């Protein structure tokens, strides 16, 4: 009897050891995202061929996104400045820097990054999500992490070794970036009231519909067409920007020439790009205050007031903004849309229809260290 038991134990041991060896030597698993479907009207998207969307990459990216291990002091994660309930912003004008001050820019909303853009950050300094992913980690004021130290920490973790092995193979900076990019690409928001309206599932209120029409219209007093002129810059408002490399950047009249920040010019070196910043997605805009690249406006009412009569003229101001005026007969005392209070309220009501509560609470995008599935 003892002999039989020993033989069975030996067989079991050999099998377990074999499985462990096999598990470490086998190629990464590439399980397609189950039941993947995206709205047709969002347009074509493309995923880098060398970083396809897989379940394993998404799971790894999600863990990395929420893990403070990615920072030098092990206290700051990507999610520190990108809070799901706030449309993956942080509710601050500018996030605090590790050195005690504040960062240069407001935290950007993350949603529908599958579509459009070829440049990331307010000033477009990254040309891919993969490139973008490692920059905050290594920035001394953001997460302050030495990339080699991070790789050592990740390799020391059995959990991460296994997740990297399943997703990509080895623990590496490149695969860390790939996983974070995959997680961000999968942050798909398509269930706001406006999405439901487009699908015919709900109706907009009269005020929201008024706002929708104003949002879509460039004012033309010759034909008595009143407009908020929003679509001229925010044509990709359902997704996250433009695919044309620099088309999604604009000077929206925040500052005079004397104090105009470099913006995109810091990246391109082109003076014509001075003061240009990324036109952001308007998804979940009602929960991503404060607004603009420096968070200078606390409310959507402040934003509308800026576009209505607070435009500051500078050399690179968008002509689409400069010429959009609902009351040119009133003279040139101010530059802006010069809409009525009711019209501005209507546009704000429409912007609220872009809030996707399902997305903001989707457990798939939540912190996995909080027990999320």
């Amino acid at each position, binding site marked *: 009897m003892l002999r039989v038991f020993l033989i069975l134990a030996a067989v079991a041991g050999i099998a377990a050891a074999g499985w462990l060896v096999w598990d470490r030597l086998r190629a990464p698993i590439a399980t*397609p*995202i189950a039941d*993947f*479907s*995206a*709205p*047709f*009207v*969002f*347009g*074509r*998207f*493309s*995923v880098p061929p060398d970083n396809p*969307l897989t379940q394993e990459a998404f799971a790894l990216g999600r863990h990395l996104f929420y893990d403070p291990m990615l920072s030098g002091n092990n206290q700051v994660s990507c999610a520190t400045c990108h809070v799901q309930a706030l449309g993956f912003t942080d509710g601050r004008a500018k996030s605090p820097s590790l050195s005690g001050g504040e960062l240069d820019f407001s935290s950007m909303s993350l949603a529908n990054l*599958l*579509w*459009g853009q070829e440049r990331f950050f307010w000033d477009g300094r990254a040309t891919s999500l993969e490139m973008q992913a490692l920059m905050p980690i290594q920035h001394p004021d953001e997460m302050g992490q030495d990339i080699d130290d991070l790789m050592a920490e990740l390799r020391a973790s059995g959990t991460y070794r296994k997740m990297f092995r399943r997703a990509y193979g080895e623990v590496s900076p490149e695969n860390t970036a790939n996983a974070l990019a995959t997680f961000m690409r999968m942050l798909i928001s398509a269930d706001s009231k406006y999405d439901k*309206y*487009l*699908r*015919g*599932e*709900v*109706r907009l209120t009269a005020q929201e519909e008024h706002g*929708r029409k104003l949002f*879509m*219209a460039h004012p033309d007093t010759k034909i008595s067409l009143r407009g908020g002129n929003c*679509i001229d810059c925010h*044509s*990709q408002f359902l997704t996250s920007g*433009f*695919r*044309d490399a620099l*088309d999604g950047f604009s000077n929206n009249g925040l500052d005079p020439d004397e104090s105009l920040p470099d913006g995109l010019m810091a990246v391109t070196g082109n003076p014509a790009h001075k003061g240009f910043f990324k036109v952001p997605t308007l998804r979940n805009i009602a929960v991503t205050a404060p607004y603009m690249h420096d968070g200078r406006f606390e409310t959507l009412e402040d934003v509308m007031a800026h576009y209505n009569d607070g435009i500051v003229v500078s050399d690179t101001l968008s002509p689409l903004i400069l010429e959009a005026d609902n009351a040119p007969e009133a003279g040139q005392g101010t530059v802006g849309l010069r809409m009525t209070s009711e019209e501005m309220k209507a546009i704000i009501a429409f912007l609220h229809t872009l809030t996707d509560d399902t997305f903001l609470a989707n457990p798939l995008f939540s912190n996995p260290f909080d027990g999320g599935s």
Partner: protein
Amino acid sequence: MYFSQFKQSVLVGAGLILTSLSPAMSQDREESQGMVLLRGLPTLDTSHSIAIVELDPESDRFGEILSEVEQPEMEHPLHHLYYSPNGRLYSTGLDPSCSLAEVGLSRDADGAPVISGFTCLDTQGQMVGEDIMWANSNGQEYMFVTFMGGTGGDDGGSVGVFDTQTNEVVKIIEARKSQVGEGEPYIMYPHGISAFEDRMVVTSTVHPDLATGVGNVLTIIDLNALEPIENILVEKEKPLNFPSSPVEVLFARPDMHPEIEPAILANTMFGFETWKVPYDASSKTFGLAEVIYSGVANKTAVPLEFYGTEDELFISHALPGVVKRYELAALPELVSSGPDIVADPGAHHMIFYTSASGRDLIAIQNNLLNLGNGADDDPTDVDFIADLASHTISVHDLETGERLATIDFKERYNKGVDNLEGLFGSGFVHHH
């Protein structure tokens, strides 16, 4: 077709995304992909289907079906595709079980468009859906659909008014000739539809069985009351000894081009003519109907569709299979803007787009109806119509009309091709 600014922004925005794809992605340019309705041919054992087809002759996937959903349970196919102002895709249908449907589109994990299915809508008994347009009545937008069979009968026909959000029937506009009384306006076998301000026009074409009756009038509908108010006779020459059978119609109007004087243009399928009916918007009255194009004189027959781009109007003539082109600004007069585009017999629907290298193209679907071919002993064959069924889409240079390529759907897929629409709209701005 009525395009709202939003629809344009959605489709153009999507187009902008597509046009900026890198050369490596050029095989996936969606602006050169077409939506087609295919008809299974009984003797060739194929099913009706909705499909996405690559139409860029410069693509090595030219003519390839990229996505397809079949309808093996339906005896008759879906008929005409239309995008709503909000970008929802609809199809009318010839099968009584599905006279109107909403088509589902989505994207797979590679970003490619896929047809996810279709949902047949409740039409409250209205059958043989033909054309769709979106127009306002008393400030409220509705979806208007012509049903050539209406709710049935020898003089049936209706215009269904649908809620644009819920797709529910709001009203059925119906006025049977046999019931309205002598001289009162009626609606019979409606097919073409167009509108300007508060006046809508539908045609009276032919009973769906192609035998019971043929129409010869236009019906004017008051969009305030949603009631027919006038019939206008459009019949002169009768080369087939049939009534004229007006089919497609276009209300030429100033918002198409500021120089256009409002007037209805109507093609008569069996009269082979194009008619003009002037409209005085101030008095809301229509002038004398007159023929402005004679197919008999010009050796063409079965004029069908109107499509307008920014500066030209295109009219398809099923025989001999040509598309004639005119100056848009000269409407309602037909002033030629260039030589005919020589397609195939059955020249019918068309779309406008660009190739990967930026060449302006026109694709023409060449089939009047996808009935069977007598040579195949197909029981659905009708000789006259079979002559107008080439089962092809021909692709031409838009500027010169030169044919660049052809897809023969019968040869390649054992199916006919019943309708053509661009995946992101059709590049035209005026259709109805």
